[in-house]
């Protein structure tokens, strides 16, 4: 049994690191402007069910309270966490790839953090803190797929060089196939100007050089939005992204099929 409170604190700390992605970086031109704001939802809250962790007793035992899908979280004031905000266009400089890895932890059969940003080529450190088997299945479109298992507690894999995500891609989904509810998203960029919204939907991108940019937001459930933005040295620009409807743009080919079904086997038709 893991102390839930402690986990929560740790995770908040993890989000904190991701929010200030720009602190860690050097190489290209760094500025003094700050862009910050909130991610909000004005539409009706989504209906959700608690995650059924009965699939793996080891997972269920790690939680005293029901867990909900992170992508559907909405705070009572309508703010939403786990939105990924980044400068989509307008960044010109070339930025170094940091050698400090981005850490993904598997804890209580959830990924911590659920959404994070990284720079293409930055190493990934994946840890298993659960007393059960996980597999880590990345489903990128532009980068190389990976899919491996960590069958027990304490194992960790460091992916670097050609093994990590080497090309910018927003977003890469990471999934655990053993525990189908487990997913994480990585925003892979070529520069350090990104943030992930946290408590109160707040986010902040620091050290932005003066210039004109396209500021974009991505959210797993609500989709993407873009806004042009201009910053001057030393200035702080605020922008609040508000999703007004379920913009869920899932790039799926909608078909009229029932999941996993098809013609009933003729011979053994009841």
């Amino acid at each position: 049994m893991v102390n839930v409170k402690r986990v929560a604190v740790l995770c908040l700390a993890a989000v904190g690191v991701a929010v200030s992605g720009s602190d860690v970086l050097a190489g290209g031109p760094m500025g003094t402007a700050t862009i910050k704001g909130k991610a909000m939802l004005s539409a009706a809250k989504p209906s959700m069910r608690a995650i059924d962790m009965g699939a793996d007793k080891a997972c269920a035992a790690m939680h005293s309270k029901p867990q909900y899908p992170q992508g559907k979280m909405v705070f009572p004031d309508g703010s939403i966490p786990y939105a990924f905000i980044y400068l989509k266009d307008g960044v010109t400089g070339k930025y170094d790839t940091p050698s400090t890895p981005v850490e993904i932890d598997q804890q209580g059969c959830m990924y911590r953090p659920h959404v994070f940003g990284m720079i293409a080529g930055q190493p990934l450190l994946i840890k298993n803190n659960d007393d059960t088997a996980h597999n880590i299945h990345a489903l990128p479109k532009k980068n190389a797929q990976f899919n491996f298992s960590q069958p027990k507690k304490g194992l960790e894999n460091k992916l670097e060089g050609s093994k990590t995500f080497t090309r910018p891609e927003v977003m890469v989904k990471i999934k655990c196939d053993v525990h189908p509810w487990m997913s994480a998203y990585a925003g892979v960029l070529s520069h350090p100007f990104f943030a992930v919204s946290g408590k109160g939907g707040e986010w902040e991108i620091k050290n932005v050089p003066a210039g004109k940019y396209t500021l974009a937001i991505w959210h797993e459930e609500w989709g993407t939005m873009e806004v042009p933005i201009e910053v001057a040295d030393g200035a702080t620009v605020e922008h609040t992204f508000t999703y007004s409807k379920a913009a869920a743009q899932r790039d799926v080919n909608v078909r009229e099929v029932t999941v996993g079904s098809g013609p009933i086997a003729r011979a053994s038709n009841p």
Partner: protein
Amino acid sequence: MSAATHGSHAGHDHGAAHGHDLPFWRKYVFSVDHKVIGVQYTITALVFLLFGFSLMMIMRYQLAYPGRPLPIVGSWLGPGLVNADRSLSPDGYNVFGAMHGTIMVFLAVVPLVVGGFGNYVVPLQIGAPDMAFPRLNAASYWSYLSGGLVMFASFFMKGGAAQSGWTSYAPLAVISPGQTVWLLGMVLLITSSLLGSVNFIVTIVQLRAPGLSFFRLPFFVWAQFVTAFLLLLAFPPLEAAAILQLMDRIAGTSFFMPTGLVVSGQILPTEALPHTGGGSPLLWQHLFWFLAHPEVYVLILPAMGIVAEVVANNTRKPLWGYRSMVYAIIFLGFMSFIVWAHHMFMTGMGTKLSLFFATTTMIISIPSVVVLTALILSLWGAAMRFNSQFLFALAFLPMFAIGGLTGLPLGLPASDIHLHDTYYVIGHFHYVVAPGTIFAIFAGVYHWYPKVTGRKMSELLGRVHFWPSLICMNVIFLPMLFQGLQGLSRRTYDPLVYDAGQAVQGWHFVSSWGAWILAIAQIPFIINFFWSAVAGKKVSDNPWDATTLEWAAPSPPPHGNFLKSVSVYRDPYVYSPPGRPSDFWPQNQPPED
């Protein structure tokens, strides 16, 4: 007939003159001589046999001690195959499992019994100077070797080796890494088998010595003949299947991918998996098993042939029921094409179809019983000479009996419900191929070694090799039958996950130690194999007092095989003929002699 005699003459004259002026690499490396190719096949396949066995020994460590870091080898294996703590990873387990099956079947056992023994012995036993198409024969070997190297190289490629089982069931195989290289390797191996089988059939039909009618052929040649037909007709459907799966993987077709798949939460088609659907996963299984069931007989028929040779020679009496054995294996060959779907009883096929295949499966067990019974009855009234090859041939009989009998519960769809895809299946077919076919291979090596090298292998080391091998084989595979009866699924990386696995974990421990001791028991064989080649006792051309034609050639036979033309005057196994002082009467000895 005169043409054949003339041909043999020419062969000798030519061979004697030709054998000397070839440079080393033409004589021993890129040779077109069936004997050199046979030896190349044998040695390559023995290396693959050892390699495939090593993969299994690593897997057995994980099964005996789930999750424990691998000693020694753990640090040699790449990060895909082992976890950070150097224990075997689930991916590594699947890779090793798939490659163990592939290597053992396609790269070790079939090349040994067909490519190795078939190539070396068949032309000699029919009195031919070489195979019908020597260059095709060489092409067959080099195609096999390239296929093998491609398979081996796949371990070091991005994505690693195949990990979807040797059966490569779609859709898993279509979406798993490593499979493309596996398919390319298979295409090369299939090509090799096709070239080889065409060569064998033509050789056996066209190149027999004068007087060697079909019913005077040694049983081994018959076995190779039927085997060649199985390879010729059963492999192309697998090639077709491999082409289709290759298209699925690289061109994005959906032959084996049905509509509406959701892989890892992604609805197909996606950019990475552009499968539009509409295909049938069962199509792959039908095409695969249409090959793979005859393939089982490809594994076992030549082994029966070797055992028959060794038994006849060392009992010093003719085989009991030679003709019925021949008819039995011809019938077996035909039937093996209509039993394939007994591997698919659990796929939801209709009961009528199930019963059809169950019936053909029961029918096909009869000829196996005939052959086995004939071999056992051949012992009656014998004067047995217990040398190493005979010990292995004798051990083949009960081991193959267990393997064959345990096939019965799997051949009936009702009992198969409980036993399908459990360790019972593994125990069953390993009894057929491991202490079965591989023991026959050992018997063949000890038997024909003097022909190849002119020297005998050590009898002492032979016995040191035989007894631990026999015991260990049973220690490994008998527990699997019990594990299977408990319902433990095969291909389970960590058996402790399941109740059934926990109940029978002790057997895993026993099996694994059996496997490791078996490996040690092969050391005397390896020493014997190489040491005897230089220091073994020199022997005459016919050290076992055998009757078949290969012993009429010098040891080792020169290029062109026979010093003078051979003709055949009688049945293959005229041992202890009444009224003659000698207890054997070679096929080529004229009657007035």
